[in-house]
């Protein structure tokens, strides 16, 4: 089911039999596109306009009027640069770990488990199972498992793996752990869909030509699974960079682990400093768009879009 969403890139397109443009196409497209223009595109424009707003003179707290106060951007960068750096650092780390952890798993499910369809479907259901339980509750479960009084942490302290006064929750480790855990299914599924189509005869050809297993992996397996790697890393990196659940103090984070999402949320919903929240959102979105287009060009997988 959810897998369908990740498996389109290689689907055959029946363009040769497509009919000519007609009023029917317009009728089919118009409502959905109009909806997205109203509730996706104009909000982004609103966000851009809000990011330049200035406090209303003699206005109430949280009142702003349209202006071109570009200093808002300079202000949020000077105030929140550690959060901005941290967000992309954590997101990159989580993407890297998710890839390292997911690739062997996806390879096992997609290639090695082909002979046992039942095992394959069981493993796939287990990969998507975390989607069925609340994101917040599964993150909180890790918080309890990593809490100071938990079995895991007290045993690690007893074995002197952790210092007696060490904490696990509230650290960069636990935030990156949470992000990695929560986005592993997003990484594993696209990897699985490309590896599942991998023709093992190419690998055999590689070893017949006296390539070492490592060489076959680097020169054949990796390039052939590139669409999955690109899709998986994007599906992990983008939501991880904007996430504020894992890094929140009530969940896996602490005061020193706040990410850009946390400060956008605080500025919008608590401090009512809408221009600052909007400027941070525009910054986040721009960095991600630049990063994504650069990454997709570099990896040569434009047709994925």
């Amino acid at each position, binding site marked *: *089911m*959810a897998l*369908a*969403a990740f498996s*389109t890139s290689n*689907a*055959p397109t*029946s363009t040769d*039999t*497509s009919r*000519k*443009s*007609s009023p*029917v*196409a317009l009728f*089919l*497209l118009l*409502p*959905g*596109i109009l*909806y*997205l223009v109203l*509730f*996706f595109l*104009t*909000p*982004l424009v609103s*966000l851009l*306009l*809000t990011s330049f707003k200035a406090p209303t003179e003699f206005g109430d707290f949280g009142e702003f009027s349209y202006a071109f106060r570009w200093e808002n951007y300079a202000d949020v960068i000077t105030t929140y640069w550690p959060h901005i750096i941290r967000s992309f650092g954590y997101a990159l780390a989580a993407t890297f770990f998710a890839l390292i*952890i997911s690739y062997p*798993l996806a*390879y*096992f499910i997609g290639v090695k488990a082909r002979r046992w369809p039942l095992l394959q479907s069981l493993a796939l*259901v*287990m*990969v998507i*199972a*975390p*989607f*069925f*339980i*609340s994101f*917040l*509750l599964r993150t909180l*479960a*890790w918080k309890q498992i990593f809490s100071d009084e938990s079995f895991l942490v007290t045993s690690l302290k007893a074995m002197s793996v952790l210092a007696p006064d060490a904490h696990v929750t509230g650290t960069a480790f636990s935030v990156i752990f949470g992000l990695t855990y929560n986005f*592993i*299914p997003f990484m594993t599924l696209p990897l699985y869909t490309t590896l599942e189509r991998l023709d093992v005869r190419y690998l055999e050809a590689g070893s017949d030509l006296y390539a070492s297993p490592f060489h076959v992996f680097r020169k054949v397996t990796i390039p052939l699974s590139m669409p999955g790697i690109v899709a998986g890393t994007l599906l992990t990196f983008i*939501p991880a960079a904007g*996430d504020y659940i894992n890094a929140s103090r*009530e*969940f896996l984070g602490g005061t020193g682990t706040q990410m850009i*999402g946390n400060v956008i949320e605080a500025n*919008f*919903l608590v401090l009512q400093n809408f221009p600052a929240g*909007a400027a941070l*959102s525009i910054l*986040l979105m721009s960095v991600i768009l630049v990063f994504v287009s650069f990454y997709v060009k570099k990896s040569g997988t434009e047709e994925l*879009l």
Partner: protein
Amino acid sequence: MKHSIGKWVLPAYSALALLILMIPIGYTFVYSFNDSLKSNIVWRSFTFDKWLNVCNVQNGAVCEAFGNSIFIAVVSTVAATTLGTMIAIAMVRYRFKFRSQLSLFLFLPMATPEVVLGAGLAAQFLSIGVPKDMTTIILAHTMFSISFVVVAVKARVATLDPALEEAGRDLYGSALQVFLRITFPLLLPGILAAALLSFALSFDDFIITNFNSGNVSTFPKYIWISAARGIPAEANVVASAVFILALVIVVTVQVSGAARAKRLAKIN
């Protein structure tokens, strides 16, 4: 000798990875049976009470949040599946100007972090003076689900054999008849998968909801707010029940899909 050990490394690793993925699910499920007091952190003793009296805690706050989440998910799924399916059919079946620009536009909501989508809508509702309530949540959820529906249904439309529809037209079926009796039934599995995905996205969404919900409580928002003062075991009950239901649906879909594949294999 080395070879035979090497053969087991990957399966053992995969089993371990899958097991770790299951830990929070198991934890949530086990703690739904905890005879907890206000917060559900320390294990006290086993009880079925929380399952039997889910709606009694905090004047039914858990159940109210759950009911809101279901209502929002149903309405936004119907809207997003309808709009998204229409776009998907048009994208695969018709050629028109700006087609590639349109697919980029449809990709954008999926490439935008949720916090930006949420803040954008909040900024828009603020500037036009719309109060945040159930409607704004539904509008938001429909928006982010459409692109996922398009992707899921497009895959199905692309595998559809146009000859079947041509046959329908050759037999003097009207355009509407061909759509209702041939195209739609063939697309149905894809549409259902898209609807399930859209439902799941809406039901579990917190980030966009948090920006656009005002005082309305949803299940994820209830957990977020309760996290500070302790989450009652009843929340674990609701989450576990939803998990079991989702699992049953997925297993049924998988099994019936496998059975159909077997039947088709027999015919051929």
